[in-house]
C-alpha cells in the first residue's frame, strides 16, 4: 500500500479541533483563523498534494479532505459563538448597574419639551368638545369577533354591504370569525349590550380608537387609522337631535363660521342614514380644489339607529331610540393642518413630530 498525504488526516484533524477548543478569546480566534482554515492552513496544503494521487484515489481523498474541512470550520464557528456569548456575558457583567441604587437627584436631564402625536392632539380636542356636550368617552378592543364588527350592526355574513369595508381577518379558529375592527362601531354594540345587562340606559358616549382596513396606503388613506364614533340612546331621540349635535360639534370644533349639512347616505346600522359635510375649511365655502369647488367637505357618516341593531342588542325600540355618527380623527387632523400626504403620520421623523404641540 502506497503512502498517501492523507494518512494522518484523522490525527491532524483532532489536533486542529484541540487547538480550536483552547482558543480563549475572540481576538485569539481571529488571529488563529488563517492557520486553521485559510490559504496557508494545513488543510489547504494537503489539498495541493492531492495531485500526486492516482485519479481513482483522488476523488475519495478529496471527499475525506472536504469532510475534515467541514468539521474544522463548524468547530470554529461553534467556538466563535461560544466566545461571543462569553464576551457578551463578560461585557454585561462588567456593565451591570443596580437600578435600585440610582440616585435620581444626580441624574442629568437636559431641559426640552416634547410633542404629543398629531393624532393624540386631535383626539383630545375632539374628546374635550364632546365631553363638554355631555358625552362620556368609551373604548373597545381592536381585535373583534364578527358579531361585534358586522352582524350585530345589521351586516349579515356574506352580505354585499360587507364590501364597504375591506377587512383584515385574524387567523384564529373558524375562518372570517375574527377581524381587525374596520370601524369603531363595535364599541357601540359593547356599550349597548352592557347597558342592557346593567339596566343602565340611557347612553351618551363617544368612542375613539384605532381601526384597520385592507387598503393599500396612499396620500389620503392609511390601512391603520383612527375614528371617533358617537352614540346616543335615550327616550324621544330623533333625526333632529342628530342634526343638532352634528351642528353644535361642528361649530365648537371647527369654529363659528363653519357649518354642517346632511345628505342621504347608506349604512346598514342606521336608518335614515346620512353623510355629513362641513364648510370647506380651506376656502371657507368659496370653492377650491380641496372641496372640488363645492365649498363642502365630507367628514363622516351618521344616522338614526336602525331597529335591527336595537333588536340585536335587546333594546326595546318602542321605549328607546338613538343615533350614531362617526368620522376620521386623522382626517380632521389632515384637514386642519393641510397635510399633503398622510403617510407622514407613520413615518415618525422627529422633525415632523416636532411640528405639533
Amino acid at each position: 500500500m502506497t503512502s498517501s498525504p492523507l494518512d494522518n488526516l484523522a490525527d491532524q484533524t483532532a489536533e486542529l479541533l484541540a487547538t480550536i477548543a483552547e482558543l480563549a478569546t475572540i481576538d485569539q480566534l481571529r488571529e488563529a483563523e488563517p492557520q486553521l482554515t485559510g490559504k496557508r492552513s494545513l488543510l489547504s496544503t494537503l489539498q495541493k498534494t492531492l495531485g500526486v494521487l492516482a485519479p481513482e484515489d483522488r476523488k475519495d481523498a478529496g471527499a475525506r479532505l472536504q469532510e475534515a474541512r467541514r468539521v474544522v470550520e463548524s468547530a470554529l464557528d461553534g467556538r466563535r459563538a461560544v466566545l461571543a456569548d462569553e464576551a457578551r456575558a463578560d461585557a454585561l457583567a462588567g456593565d451591570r448597574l443596580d437600578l435600585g441604587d440610582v440616585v435620581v437627584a444626580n441624574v442629568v436631564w437636559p431641559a426640552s419639551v416634547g410633542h404629543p402625536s398629531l393624532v393624540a392632539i386631535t383626539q383630545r380636542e375632539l374628546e374635550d368638545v364632546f365631553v363638554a356636550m355631555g358625552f362620556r368617552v368609551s373604548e373597545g378592543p381592536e381585535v373583534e369577533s364578527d358579531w361585534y364588527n358586522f352582524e350585530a350592526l345589521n351586516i349579515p355574513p356574506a352580505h354585499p354591504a360587507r364590501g364597504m369595508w375591506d377587512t383584515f381577518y385574524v387567523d384564529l379558529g373558524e375562518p372570517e370569525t375574527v377581524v381587525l375592527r374596520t370601524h369603531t362601531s363595535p364599541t357601540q354594540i359593547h356599550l349597548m349590550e352592557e347597558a342592557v345587562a346593567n339596566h343602565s340606559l340611557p347612553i351618551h358616549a363617544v368612542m375613539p380608537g384605532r381601526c384597520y382596513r385592507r387598503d393599500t396606503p396612499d396620500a389620503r388613506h392609511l390601512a391603520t387609522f383612527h375614528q371617533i364614533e358617537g352614540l346616543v340612546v335615550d327616550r324621544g331621540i330623533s333625526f333632529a337631535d342628530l342634526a343638532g349635535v352634528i351642528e353644535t360639534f361642528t361649530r365648537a370644533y371647527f369654529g363659528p363660521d363653519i357649518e354642517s349639512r346632511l345628505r342621504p347616505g347608506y349604512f346598514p346600522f342606521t336608518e335614515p342614514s346620512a353623510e355629513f359635510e362641513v364648510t370647506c375649511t380651506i376656502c371657507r365655502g368659496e370653492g377650491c380644489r380641496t372641496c372640488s369647488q363645492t365649498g363642502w367637505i365630507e367628514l363622516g357618516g351618521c344616522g338614526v339607529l336602525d331597529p335591527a341593531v336595537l333588536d340585536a342588542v335587546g333594546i326595546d325600540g318602542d321605549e328607546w331610540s338613538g343615533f350614531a355618527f362617526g368620522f376620521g380623527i386623522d382626517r380632521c387632523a389632515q384637514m386642519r393642518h393641510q397635510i399633503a400626504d398622510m403617510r407622514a403620520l407613520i413615518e415618525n421623523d422627529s422633525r415632523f413630530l416636532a411640528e405639533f404641540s
Partner: protein
Amino acid sequence: MKIALSWLSEFVDITESPEELRVILDDLGLVVEGTEIVGEGLDKVVVARIDEIRAIEGADRVRLVVVDAAKGPLEIVCGATNISVGDHVPLAPIGAVLPGGFEIAKRSMRGVTSNGMLCSATELGLGDDHRGLMLLDNLIDPVVGMGLLEALAIIPDVVFDITVEGNRPDAWSVEGVARDLATRLGRELRVPALAAPNSLETSASFASVAIDAPDLCGRLTVSVLRHVRVGESPGWVKRRVLSAGMRPISNVVDASNLVMLELGQPTHPYDAANVAQRTLRARRARTGETLRTLDGVERSLATDGRGLGDTGEDCVIVDGDDRVLGLAGIMGGASSEISATTTDVLLEAAYFDPMSIARSSKRHGVRSEASNRFERGVDPELALRAAARFVAILRESSPELEWFAAPLDVRGDLPTPSTVTIRDGDIERLLGVAIPVEEATALLRGLRFEVSVQGRELTVTAPPARPDVRTNAAGRADVIEEIARQHSYRRLPRRTPTWPEPGGLTPRQSLRRVLRDVVVNLGAYECWTPTLGSDAEFDLLHRGAPRVRITNPLASEESVLRATLLTGLARVWAKNTERGVGGVVLCEFGNVFAHPEGASVPRMTKGGVGGAIALDLPLETERLTIVLGRASDDARSAVALWTVLAARLGLADVVVRQTLSPPRGLHPTRAAELVDRATGAVLGVVGEVDGALLDAVSSAPTTQRVGLVDLDLDVLANRELARRREEFSAIPTRYPSAVIDLAFVTPRTVHAADLAHELRATSELVERVELFDVYEGTSLPPDTRSLAYSVRLSSMERTLNEAEVASTRGRLIAAAETLGAVLR
C-alpha cells in the same frame, strides 16, 4: 354609474344647469362624484392631413410637420412619433381653447414658428390614449378641414358620475335616477318606447324554460327572437353605451347593455343554435362541474364555501343537454355567445336571489355589471319590460327580426313587497318634524309606493323594485327615510338635545392623559408605529412564541400583530439617528397582542352567525413605552423619568427592583421591574434597550446607550394593584427637624429601596428617608456597596432632644443590620 344629461333628459324635463342638477342629485343621496363635459372646447378643432415631416436643426425631440386643413399649408412643431405623411389628425388652430382651458397660441422655437397644435385623444378629452396623436384614419373616412365634432359625430353633453348607495338598487339606472328627480321636481316621468311581439308563433313552440332551484332563481323569462342580423349598432346606441363607459360590441350585445343601463335589468342573449333543445334551465351547480366563462377562465363550480356565510352553492343556467351555459346572473359561458353568424337569439331576463349572487360572485372573484345589480336586488317585475325595450332597440338595426308571442316566463320564490303602517306621529318621532300626510303620500307615490290613507295613518306597500324596504319597525324607518330624502334632509329641523348625565373620561383615559403630559413635558416625542409586522420583526424579541396572524395581509411584512412597542420605537430611533435628527426621547401608547394560546387569560367574545359561538380572542394590553435616546441618557435617566411619573401619579410605594431575567429587548444587567411593594404587581420595567436589538434595527453597529421605560397601563390603571397614596394628608410639624446621614455597607442582594423602607418603619419620628449617595469601591467587602441615606427626624409635639436623636439613630442602625447592612 355614468349618466349623460342628454339621456336623463329623455326621461324628465330638465331646465336646471348641470351645476344646479348636481346639487339636487347630491341632496337626493345620488352623489355626483364627478362631472365630465364631452366635446367641450372642440368646436375649433379640425381634421388636418399631414403632407410633410421635416427635422428641425438642433432639435431631437420635436419635428416640423406641414399639414393641410383646407386653408393652405400650415407649419406646426410636433413631438409625436406615431405619424407619417398622409395621416389625418386633429388640429387645434391658434385661438382654440382645449378642454381644461389650455389656449393654443403661436409659438416660436429654434427659429421655426408653430401655428397650432396637433392633438392626442387625451388632450381632446376623447380617450385615455396619450401615447401619440389621435389617428383619425382608424376611426372615420376623414375629410380635410371638417370640424372634428362633425367628423366624429360628437354631440356635446355632460356626463355625471353618480354613486348609487347599496340600498338603492332601484336607482341604478337612468330611469331610476330620473324617477328620483321627477318626484323631487314634481315633473312627469317619460318612459321609453317598448316593442311588442310581432310574430304569431308562440315562444313555447320554439324554446322551453324551467327553474329547478326556485330559492336561487326567482324568475326566468326567455324571449325568442328569430331572423336577427348581427351587426353594428346605430350611432345613438353606440354613443349611449360609450357615455356610460362601456364598449360597443355588436347590436345585440349593445342593446342588452343599453337596457341594463337604462332600466336596471341585466339580460343575457344566447345564440339559440348553440343551446341544446333551445331549453334554458336554472339549477344548482353540482360539485365537479366546470365552466369556461366569457373572460376565458375555467371555473370550478359548487366548491366548498369560503368564509363566513358562504354555502358554496352556485346557480347555473343549463341547456337541454344539461350542459352548463353560464354562471347565472354573473357571467355567461363562451359556448353560447352571440357571434356574427347568429340568427336566432334566446334572450334571458331573470331575477336571481341577491345573497346567492353575492356569495358566488365573491367566491369566484367575478364582479360584472350584471352581478353588481343582481346582488343588490333587481326589480323582479322588470324582466319582460326589459325584453320589450331590448327588441325596440335591436329592431332599428335588425328590422326583419321576429319576436315570438307569449315569452316564456316561469317563477320561483320571489320576495313579497313589504307593507308597513305609518301611524300618526311616527314621522315626527323619527325625524323630529311632522311632514304633512299629503306631501308624504305624493312623494311616496312618485317613487311607485302604493299608499292608502286612513285619516292620518298611511298603509304603504313598497314597489317590487325596492327589496331594501323591510317590514315592521325597520320597514317604517325605511319608508320614512324615503320621505325625508325626497323632502330634503336640509329642510329638516335641528335640535340639540340635553341630558342630566354628565360627560367625562374614564379613569384609564385620565391616566393616559397624565402620563402623556408628563412624558411630553419632559421631552418625549410621541410616535405611531405599525401594529402589523413581519415574522422576522416578531422574532427579534419573541422567537418561538405563538403569534397572532392576519389571514389576508397586504404584504408578508404586515402579517403579524405586534407583541411589543419596543421594536417599532427602536426602529424609529435608528431611522432618526441615521437621518441625523435623532438624539430625542420617543414614546408610544399602543395595544400589544398575545395569542390566546399564550395568554393566561384569553379574552372571550361571541362570534359567527348570530353570535352563536364563544371565541378566545388575543389578549390585548395597552402599554406606554418610552425610549430615551439623547446623548446623556442611559438606564439612570429611565429611572429618573419613572420616578417623576410615579410621583405625579401619587403611587404609594413602588420599588425599582433589579431583575436578572428581564423581558427580551432589555439590557440584561441594567434592567429592573417596577413592583408595587404591597401587592407584588409589576407595573412595568425600566432599564436600557439591549444593544443587540439596536444593532439589529440599525444599519451600523452602535455603542450609544438608550434608556427604556415600558409600562403596562392595564396594571397601572388598576388601583387595587397599583395603589395610590392614601387620601389622608399630614400637616407638617411646626417643630424643627433633625437630619442625620447614615452610610451602610450593604450586600448587593439588598435593594436600596427595601433598606429605605426598613429605616422608614423604624420609628414614628422618621419623617423622610432619602438615598443621596452610592459608593462602590475596592475598599469595601466583595458584593457590597455603600448606600448613604439622609434621614429626617421630627415630632409633632416637640423639638427632639439629643438623646432622642441618638437613640433613634441607634435603632436605625440596628434595623439596617437586620438586613445585613453595616454602618460604614
